[in-house]
């Protein structure tokens, strides 16, 4: 049996070829040597079989496919969307499947269980996750092999991955976890390959290949889900410790050490960062059309998309001048994106709690486009409301008045408490009731993102704050909804307490045109007519990236309760499951449900590892070394990667406040499965004293693995969903009270 590694032969082959080509192939015969590890081939085949078997079944939307599917459709139609759940690489990979299968994006993803229409290439859509899941099996083998564990242990790890029901279920659908697990494992594997080639052949092509691949795989993992960052940090941590020892290696020259450190910094920090940006670059290049999520983004961003706002704002004048007609959009998307608005209704004379108001015209923020959103920028020193020729641009620091277009009243604030936030000032459109309340309608323009102090106020691009001259209050969206008298629009206040930067006090001109008409009637007509002149503007990629990334991180998911949500504590003991799909007529169903034997023994193995590790550590501290040095080092490295991988992928969930599901545990579980054979081999080698013990232990392991296989087989109908079970069978499968297995009542 060829016990050498399959993949080692892969880099070897092209390297030999390259070598020959470079040095002249005339000198030597062209030789291709390849040794194939049949075990790995067999494992890959088994993995493929288990993951790809009847992949198109069920031909219906299963669980979160309903969620990811809509994004695939958006990619197919190249419509912009915003998904706060994760970076775009995973979505793009799924969409790649759709692209390869010729999917046109025409499917309504609205209900779990809906039948796919014939234009949906289910097989190719599910192919990439399934392949990733299948390849995780031989990769588990390789990782243990690279950790210098025995062939049996490596086989054991791969076989456990093969029969883990939860991994199979998750890999066979259009979901991201199996891709994430694949890249996690790839990162660990390539790092191990790299660190093993470190001793013999540093700076060789294969050394570079594995080092770079580590970085790329890490960024792919992060690009699929943010939680990939845990594995990335783990790999970085291990790499840092290794580098630190390298620095301490006095046999190496200083220059050599510097080269080593730089190479690692580039491959493990710079390359992932660039790759991550690349994902967004592709994402933004692909999604060039405006879509349903435009509203969340800033006007500048929206204007960079085809259609939507760009169609409206296309060709607007860039520089705001005195006499410009503008709509002002709040930079804060909370609770909804909206525009500064006023309408002929006034504030009620007194509020419910007895406080009085100025009874002047209401100023609000309105989440829909409306003719009442138009304001005219007026020079306080002059009377005309049209743009002079040539236009006089407004600059940072200038004092302006804002005239409401339809009512011709001036934006005003004064020392009257705002309706819902009494500590702030009321903002109104000034009506002169001829009482001792003069108009205070002067506003100083403060361009937040200015580059110089003489910057001109620009449409869409400038973020401005309006600072009231008399009271230094800032025009701000408070975020509260006005009651019925304010038509449930959003409250706008003059905030005078704090002067820190906050999005809610920042506004940007969205629609803009130069006003031409002198008379109010004409002006109203003008306001009703659409804007059009011609200027194009482009936002740089970095600006778009940073805005998109920021929005993705801050976008809030609404109601977070879910029937199948669970807590991290439920995961270790597998106290929870998720029903993914139920056949519309029979009782065939798919559940995310783990192999109980594997979960329990993996948990035990982790605890045992921790105990043994502490025990050995204490003993070594007192100079009692039972383990030979090399097997101790191996034991520690395996623990750092596997137990560490489990801990970093699991423990942070205790701090998270979002809704959690069982599938969040799968990456951690994968690392735990890798640890299991490590612990078993250790027990067999070091803790079983006599040959008898060893054989006994071997028999136990075989029995245990058969039990795992048996459990896999019993849960198989729930994993593949291909068999209709009678209610009594289902009841028999409900091994835990907390499992929610669907039993039809007839």
């Amino acid at each position, binding site marked *: 049996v060829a016990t050498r590694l399959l993949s080692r032969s892969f880099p070897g082959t092209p390297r030999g070829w390259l070598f020959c080509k470079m040095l002249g192939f005339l000198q030597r015969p062209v030789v291709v040597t390849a040794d194939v590890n049949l075990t790995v081939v067999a494992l890959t085949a088994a993995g493929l079989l288990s993951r790809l078997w009847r992949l198109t079944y069920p031909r219906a939307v299963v669980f979160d496919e309903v969620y990811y599917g809509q994004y695939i459709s958006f990619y197919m139609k190249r419509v912009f969307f915003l998904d706060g759940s994760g970076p775009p690489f995973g979505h793009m990979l799924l969409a790649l499947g759709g692209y390869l299968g010729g999917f046109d994006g025409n499917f309504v993803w609205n209900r779990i269980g809906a039948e796919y229409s014939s234009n949906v290439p289910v097989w190719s859509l599910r192919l990439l996750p399934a392949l990733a899941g299948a390849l995780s099996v031989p990769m588990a083998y390789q990782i243990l092999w690279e950790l210098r564990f025995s062939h049996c242990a490596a086989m054991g790890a791969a076989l456990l991955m093969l029969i883990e029901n939860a991994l199979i279920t998750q890999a066979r659908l259009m979901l991201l976890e199996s891709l994430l697990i694949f890249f996690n494992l790839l990162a660990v594997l390539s790092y191990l390959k790299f*660190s093993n080639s470190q001793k013999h052949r540093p700076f060789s092509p294969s050394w570079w290949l594995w080092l770079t691949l580590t970085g790329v795989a890490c960024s792919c993992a992060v690009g699929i889900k943010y939680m990939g960052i845990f594995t990335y940090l783990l790999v970085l941590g*291990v790499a840092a*410790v*290794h580098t*630190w*020892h390298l*620095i*301490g290696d*006095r046999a190496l020259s*200083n220059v050599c*050490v510097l080269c080593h450190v730089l190479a690692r910094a580039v491959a493990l920090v710079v390359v992932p960062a660039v790759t991550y940006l690349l994902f967004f670059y592709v994402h933004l290049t692909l999604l060039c059309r405006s879509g349903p999520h435009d509203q969340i983004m800033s006007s500048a961003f929206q204007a960079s998309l085809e259609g939507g706002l760009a169609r409206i704002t296309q060709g607007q004048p860039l520089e705001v001048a005195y006499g410009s007609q503008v709509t002002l959009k709040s930079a*804060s998307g*909370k*609770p909804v994106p909206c525009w500064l608005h006023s309408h002929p209704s006034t504030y009620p004379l007194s509020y419910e709690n007895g406080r009085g108001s100025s009874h002047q015209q209401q100023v609000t923020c309105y989440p829909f486009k409306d003719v009442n959103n138009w304001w005219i920028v007026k020079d306080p020193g002059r009377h005309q409301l049209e743009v002079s020729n040539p236009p006089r641009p407004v600059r940072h620091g200038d004092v302006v008045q804002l005239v409401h277009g339809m009512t011709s009243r001036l934006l005003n604030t004064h020392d009257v408490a705002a309706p819902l936030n009494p500590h702030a000032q009321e903002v109104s459109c000034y009506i002169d009731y001829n009482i001792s309340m003069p108009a205070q309608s002067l506003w100083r323009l403060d361009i937040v993102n200015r580059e110089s102090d003489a910057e001109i106020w620009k449409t869409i691009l400038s973020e401005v704050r309006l600072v009231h001259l008399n009271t230094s209050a800032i025009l*701000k*969206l*408070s*975020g509260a909804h006005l009651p019925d008298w304010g038509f449930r629009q959003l409250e706008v206040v003059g*905030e005078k*307490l*704090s*002067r*820190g930067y*906050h*999005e*809610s006090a920042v506004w940007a001109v969205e629609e803009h045109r130069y006003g031409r008409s002198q008379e109010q009637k004409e002006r109203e007509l003008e306001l009703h007519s659409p804007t059009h002149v011609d200027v194009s503007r482009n936002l740089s990629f970095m600006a778009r990236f940073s805005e998109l990334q920021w929005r993705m991180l801050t976008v809030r998911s609404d*109601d977070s*309760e*879910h*029937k199948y*949500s669970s807590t991290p504590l439920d995961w270790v003991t597998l106290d929870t499951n998720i029903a993914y799909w139920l056949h519309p007529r029979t009782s065939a169903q798919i559940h995310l449900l783990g192999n109980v034997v594997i979960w329990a023994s993996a948990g035990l193995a982790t605890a045992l590892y921790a105990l043994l590790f502490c025990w050995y*550590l*204490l003993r*070594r*501290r*007192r*100079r009692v070394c039972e383990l030979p040095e090399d097997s*101790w*080092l191996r034991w*520690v*490295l395996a623990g*750092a990667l596997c137990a560490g991988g489990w801990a970093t992928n699991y423990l942070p969930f205790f*701090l998270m*406040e979002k809704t959690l599901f069982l599938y969040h545990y799968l990456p951690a579980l994968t690392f735990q499965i890798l640890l299991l054979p490590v612990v078993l081999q250790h027990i067999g080698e070091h803790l079983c004293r006599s040959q008898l013990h060893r054989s006994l232990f071997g028999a136990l392991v075989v029995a245990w693995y058969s039990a795992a296989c048996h459990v896999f087989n019993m849960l198989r109908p729930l994993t593949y969903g291909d068999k209709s079970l009678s209610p009594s069978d289902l009841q028999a499968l409900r091994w835990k009270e907390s499992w929610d297995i669907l039993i039809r009542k007839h």
Partner: protein
Amino acid sequence: MLCATGRLLAAESTALPAQPRGRGPRRCRRRELHFPGHPELPLCRTASVPTGRRAILRRGRMPSAVCGGLAGSELRPRRGRYGPQAARAAVPEEAAEAAAQSPKRPAPGSRPSEAACRWVLLALVTLLAFATRFHRLDQPPHVCWDETHFGKMGSYYINRTFFFDVHPPLGKMLIGLAGYLSGYDGTFMFQKPGDRYEHHNYMGMRGFCAFLGSLLIPFAYLTVLELSKSLPAALLSAALLTFDTGCLTLSQYILLDPILMFFIMAAMLSMVKYNSCADRPFSAPWWFWLSLTGINLAGAIGVKFVGLFIILHVGWNTVSDLWHLFGDLSLSLVTVGKHLTARILCLIVLPLALYTAIYAVHFAVLNQSGPGDGFFSSAFQARLSGNTLHNASVPEYLAFGSVITVKNLRMAIGYLHSHRHLYPEGIGAHQQQVTTYLHKDYNNLWIIKKQNTDSDPLDPSFPVEFVRHGDIIRLEHKETSRNLHSHYHEAPLTRKHYQVTGYGINGTGDSNDFWRIEVINRKFGNRIKVLRSRIRFIHLVTGCVLGSSGKVLPKWGWEQLEVTCTPYLKETLNSIWNVEDHINPKLPNISLDVLQPSFPEILLESHMVMIRGNNGLKPKDNEFTSKPWHWPINYQGLRFSGINDTDFRVYLLGNPVVWWLNLLSIALYLLSGSIIAVAVQRGAHLPGEVEGLSQVLLRGGGQLLLGWALHYFPFFLMGRVLYFHHYFPAMLFSSMLTGILWDTLLRLCACGLAASSLASGVHMGGVLSLLLGTAYSFYLFHPLAYGMVGPLAQDPQSPMAGLRWLESWDF
């Protein structure tokens, strides 16, 4: 590869015990040779240089007297830890000398002048600290900022009324005690900032806080002195804190922060002191400092939960300490066990006991009903005299026919309630509203009835039938005779839940009125206790659970809270209830005192309520909030008092010179620390003096850096509202780090310069200019703390004009 850390440590521990025999004694002696002549500034390079030079010639690799004298003494405690007994046996006279080194003991022979110098400086520093903190302490004579909370809570202690706060009680108890002792009678209302104190005696409380705030500075001085053995470093740290306007402002008012910082610094100081006693384990000073550390830890966590960070710090120090002891093969396991036990006793058992004692006092003092009652469970309220539940008596077990009120277990949700108003058209079914209501009211009363018999259970001819876990019941609203009802309509606000209504006429409804009553964590068939049982109501038809979403209904629901039936069977507090009032004439009443919770239960409950309260302090959207990254750069201050130019304004803002110097120092520290660490790892042979200094930098500085990081970075993870003043404990550590860093860097510069006069001049000049610079900046910025009247800083007329270096400062 990974385990090589272990190997490294092992190697270190074998290598180090050799050190004392070789280096130690000589170093000590040489150090003694130097200092006597220059007590004020024990700088190496002055008159003693020739000795140092000679030493270089004589000893080859050990030239370290010049700067190493300082470092040698820093190393000593560590070394002692590795092999104290061996060291003691081998060189007894060294032990004596080591003892003489301790600043606590008057040193024999040539030492007194130096020790005296330390004491004089300490006295000076303390005096200056007190002078700055007590200057104009009575100004402004009105309530400033959070005094309105903590002053009020102090009054509550004096008046013995129960209140609720998110912080543990020690700080407020001390404030109350200070007020009580200084003759404040607890009658001032502390209603809002700006209220004048008039005749009320507030100086006692402010004075107490200022006293503790002043002590921070001598503590910093001693800590740095112990860590670096360098007077200039200690002086510099003390000066940075003395001249920081932020620390000054925060120390002058009735706040928890000076008390918290006092305990944090005291714990740090006693930990450092105890570390330097490590060569004399189980001696009296060792026990003293160890237990003092424990006491201060209890104090810190007793004031605010932020005290947890100093506990982590001490914990980390202890674990690494024990790890070294454990690796020392010259110590028997029994000795290591003794060490372990001592630490468990002093650092875990003692603080825990004290912390519990604080709560015991808290509950004993506050025995009267007050504003905090509503936050606590019914059983808890029964303890408080003046509360309606106090000394009340009700039947113990629920029976059919009982009239009850049902309270949600979640804080501030209230009682299950219904009234004669229907849900408006279009919102679910047009049936009677069911809500939760926070106040006691007749409409909160419900009657428990059996599923389908309408016979009056109160009929004396029927036997009493208790309600048991798992029984199917009907809840009839007493005032309107409608049944608690649910059905497949979406709830008014939480769309994923089902609507809950009142349905039926005179108690006759349909099968949607049936609920299964379940007790959490109980077995089938158990009876249900008033107050103590945590129960759930499960709707029989839909299988959903009765709960309250905590959302406020619009006006049609009288702004009471929404009640829903949730299909998600999670055990959240929203869906758990308890029975509070209970009327059943057929059952004997028992006194609620029997049900009184035990002390551990009260303790647990008050912690749960505090944690929930802390989590509840979430920032709202569209509000300006302080972010952790604002703090070290001194981005924005806090208004303590006054807004307009006519007011007396106090603005909490760090002295920018100090703060920005601190920020720079952390960057410099990381840079120099990593350079040194890499150099050591590369096996570079550092000259003796540099090595000594770098040890000070890595060990002493490392401890302070750890302290800073532990008191700063966790805030990034916190979801609650944050304020600028949360940074001040971290700021203390970073100021101490600055002191050590600049002193060491200047010494390193001095060591690098060949000419001796120039070298000492560089060091002296550097330290002096830093001292004078901070003092001058304090002169510039002192109005921030001591109060300003007049035009705002943007006005050129203002005395503060030109000092508004950042636009975000508004004073």
